[in-house]
């Protein structure tokens, strides 16, 4: 069983999306593999193709392994006109990866996201579940090393 709290409720169609999200969140690699998906579909009582259509449609899902912390950079107009491209470039340089990539140690993945609804503190990024706003290039190394330290302390 992959889904811990599977009961009749989770098989209700209005709970499928949440069940899949929860499962993905429970993994350090932040993704759902093909084999897992087949099993999840069976547990949820839906076809594999429907499960696949769900996880490839929504951008919070991934079918490829990702880092423990996902860095989402907003690049829509309100952030863009306040210099989000600089933040994105600085993150790429500092992490030595491109958008869509994962660092060698598997700690970070860098993604572009649609508007985070934090336009009052643009440019903004989201790491895991935390929002960082009003960023300048100089903030990037401090934030990243904080997460890296936290990761290695836990390991």
């Amino acid at each position, binding site marked *: 069983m992959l889904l811990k709290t599977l009961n009749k409720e989770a098989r209700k*169609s*209005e*709970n*499928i*999306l*949440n069940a899949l*999200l929860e499962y993905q969140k429970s993994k350090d690699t932040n993704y759902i593999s093909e084999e897992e998906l087949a099993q999840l579909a069976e547990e949820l009582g*839906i076809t594999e193709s*429907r499960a696949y*259509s*769900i996880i490839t*449609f*929504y*951008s*919070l*899902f991934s079918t490829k392994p990702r880092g423990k912390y996902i860095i*989402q950079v907003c*690049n*829509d*107009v*309100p952030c*863009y*006109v*306040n210099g989000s491209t600089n933040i994105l470039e600085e993150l790429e340089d500092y992490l030595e990866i491109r958008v869509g990539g994962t660092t060698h140690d598997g700690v970070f993945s860098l993604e572009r*996201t*649609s*508007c*985070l*609804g*934090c*336009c*009052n*503190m*643009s440019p903004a990024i*989201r790491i895991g*579940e935390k*929002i960082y706003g009003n960023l300048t290039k100089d903030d990037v190394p401090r934030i990243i090393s904080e997460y890296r330290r936290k990761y290695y302390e836990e390991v």
Partner: protein
Amino acid sequence: MKKYSLDLITGNCGKIDPYSIDSYIETGGYDTVRNIFAQDCENIINEIKKSDLRGRGGAGFPTGTKIEFVYKSDITPKFLVCNADEGEPGNFKDRFLLENDPHQLIEGMIIASYAAGISKGFIYIRGEYNKAIGILEKAIEQARQKGFLGKNICGSGFDFDIEIYSGAGAYVCGEEFALIESIEGKAGRPRNKPPYPVSAGIFNKPTLINNVETLSTIPFIIREGAEKYTSVGTPTSKGTRLVSLSGNVNRRGVFEVPFGISIREIIFNLGKGIPHGRRIKMVQLGGASGPCIPPEMIDLRLDYKEFENNGLSMGAGAVIVIDDRHDILDILRNIMVFFRHESCGKCTPCREGNRHILNILDRFIAKTATEKDLSTLESILNVMTDTSFCGLGQAAPTAILTALKYFRYEFLLGIYKEYEIKNAV
């Protein structure tokens, strides 16, 4: 002195503790719910109709009429969905309401559900709003403990409960049928209309879908009366609305403004102007799917009728200011990258249109476009507006269409002028 901002529905924001229901009750919260069950559903619907409240999510459909549709339906069960899938770039007013005053929304949902005879509500909230999700979970739990949610609310015999439904990162799910598909556990692609959600929504049952701001406005209207609500605003747009001000302004944020305020007042009085003495290049209204207007037009007043007369739509109330350091075509490119990514791919005009627009735009930016490109661009934009399956594809061209109207020279500068080169040689 003229008042630029009011606090009819944002009065509690920043003053009460969103994690505490008692803090909300102390301000008179939930009193309306206690008193409402003595009233007829028709009375409540009439009061909302009288207030002239229109959907604040962008479409501007009269809220009272929508509730009445669901009320009149004989099919049960009926559902209520609070649309908190705020994904339109430049909008953050719903997040502001959710994070600061969650109980006002819950109260609004109870009132709307009682009026329409609904016993189950969903709050469809985007997965990225995890802070708001946490606040809502706590608020719903507290409301259940106090007996405002669940069976037999306040001894009235009325049952109603709310479930939070988290989205998973899809802009199109703000479209009502895509949202319903998503709640049904599928990829969020829109359905054909009609039938509309009010007659066949979730699991083909009558479904009332309203935006966070719309539902949050209802407690005020029922508590204070429609007359008080309509005492602000203009003859053609009553009450207040929330504006999300962002981009190149000194003070960014959410402001509750009376209808009738001008875009200039929003930018310069509430937003304190443009940083470093720069000038406005353009202002985008409503969000990525909204119109771009030049600085000469910012005396436009926030009013449904006035917008309509100018061929504009108000959308969800975003005001994005772009200063003169930026290139119009570059900004438009950013917007089209967004739509190309967010198109769900169901219908051809939107799936292919966004891609082609972006390609053509790139030629204008590289200054290698031809006259033909300009006419092709206009033709694609019109086809998308006319034939796209849902609001996403119909509204995606708005920014470029309005830019072609107000900033046409920017496009003309991108056309490769062969004769000029020849003349130079």
